[in-house]
């Protein structure tokens, strides 16, 4: 055990600590997104027509492609973990890089969506030609919340791309596999958050 971890009595104890730390961190992040979702659900209940209208005008195809991208990336990362466990490091590295690439793709598609919204005159705060053309009560709230929620999520995806990319470069060995598990868990969490945002902003 190295000097910076000799306060642990074993590697197993350190692994347990890392896993628990990530679990606690994700609990905290869950509350972060719950707060955003509370705003979304609250305003949706007050302005059902505006939200239906907003959903109808959202970039459904791109948003759904993004869902597929994220689900694929989570799958590839899960398989990468299994590859790492069974010692197939090369495959694991390739799959991990692929996951990071999916994350980049997600962000690129998201930016495309934002460009599309701006082109239609949809800006946060209810500014833009779209709102002049459709003066529906509560419509600004829908779009502003959309930017808030996808913005926060996007920041988390970006951080995830960094973490996953770093993992791909510094693939841990069998005794340190908990580090990979931690990164994977974070990425799955980010995916899970999107699975809440996607129906609220793109479907019904």
């Amino acid at each position: 055990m190295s000097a910076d971890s000799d306060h642990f009595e074993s590697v197993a104890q350190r692994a347990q600590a890392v896993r628990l730390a990530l679990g606690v961190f994700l609990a905290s992040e869950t509350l972060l997104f719950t707060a955003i979702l509370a705003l979304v659900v609250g305003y949706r209940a007050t302005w059902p027509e505006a939200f239906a209208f907003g959903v109808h005008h959202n970039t459904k195809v791109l948003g759904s492609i993004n869902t597929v991208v994220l689900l694929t990336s989570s799958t590839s990362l899960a398989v990468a973990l299994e590859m790492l466990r069974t010692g197939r490091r090369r495959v694991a590295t390739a799959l991990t890089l692929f996951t990071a690439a999916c994350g980049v793709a997600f962000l690129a598609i998201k930016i495309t969506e934002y460009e599309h919204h701006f082109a239609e005159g949809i800006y946060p705060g209810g500014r833009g030609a779209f709102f002049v053309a459709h003066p529906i009560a509560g419509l600004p709230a829908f779009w502003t919340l959309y930017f808030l929620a996808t913005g926060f999520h996007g920041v988390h995806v970006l951080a995830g791309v960094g973490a996953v990319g770093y993992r791909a470069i510094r693939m841990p060995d069998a005794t340190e596999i908990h580090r990979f598990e931690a990164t994977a868990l974070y990425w799955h969490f980010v995916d899970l958050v999107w699975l809440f945002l996607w129906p609220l902003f793109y479907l019904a």
Partner: protein
Amino acid sequence: MIVLPDLARHALGLPVEATPTAASVDSLHAAVITTTLVGTACVAAVTFVFVLRYRRTREAPAATPRIVASGFREWLTASAVLALFVGFWAVGYVQYTSIERPPSGTLVVYVTAKQWMWQFTYADGRSSEDVLVVRAGTPFELVMTSRDVIHSFFVPSFRIKQDTIPGRWVTLYVDAAAPGSYPIYCAEFCGVAHSHMLGEVRVLDEADYAVWEREATHDGYAARGREVAASHGCLSCHALDGQKRAGPSFAGLYGSRVPLDDGRVVIADEAYLTHSIVDPLADRVAGYPAMMPSYHGQLSAEETGALLELIRSLRDTLPTQGRVP
């Protein structure tokens, strides 16, 4: 009900009890503060006794007995204390809800709070700034909103307070007040002149109030509402005499049970009416087409209040069941 003697009221720094509600609230206050003082005194006394009795002396024992509380005693104490607190909560709840529910036939005053003044508009159409005039012994209802940020209408002598919120109307019921002049404070921080947003409730006895009433020169706030309804096109779809047009008639609407197109039934109160002005397609009355435009952002608070007063003034008008007048 415990009646708080004047001496106790002065000792606690409480203002006069200008309404029956204030007196009830003070009774509960007396019970709670007494419990607080007694509880604190008991804790202090027992601690003091233990410290004296079990003071560490020179022949300090090397060990003390290991004493653990009996679970039963703990549960019993906790339950007793909880029961007491729940008792306070129950009485408090009853009193709290009583200030929301005005009996019918109550005098109404519309209150608009704005940085940094209070505007009061009466049913007869006149308005006053910072001074609210009402008749002694008559309950009245405040229908309140704010023009800009959250303020809070607070009359210590009545023991009432209600935040005024921009974009919403809230109601507060004040029961019969004794004649006198009572300060109004704004109780929600609202900017640099928050502490200057003062007002006065002037409660006049019968005679003085009659004099004040006679000085009214306006046709009435409801008449103002009719002006607003005409100029904004409301009357083309909403008749005042019970006729069913593209929209429901205002006659008999206020306070009635309204069936909605999704099967629910709601009461047409201030909240429903103002929401329908702003988002007409949300809770649409059953049997009417979805064509009312939204007036979001087009009406001032004063105009909306006038429309409300118009609709209220027609609440006892029986619909004419489709007969042309």
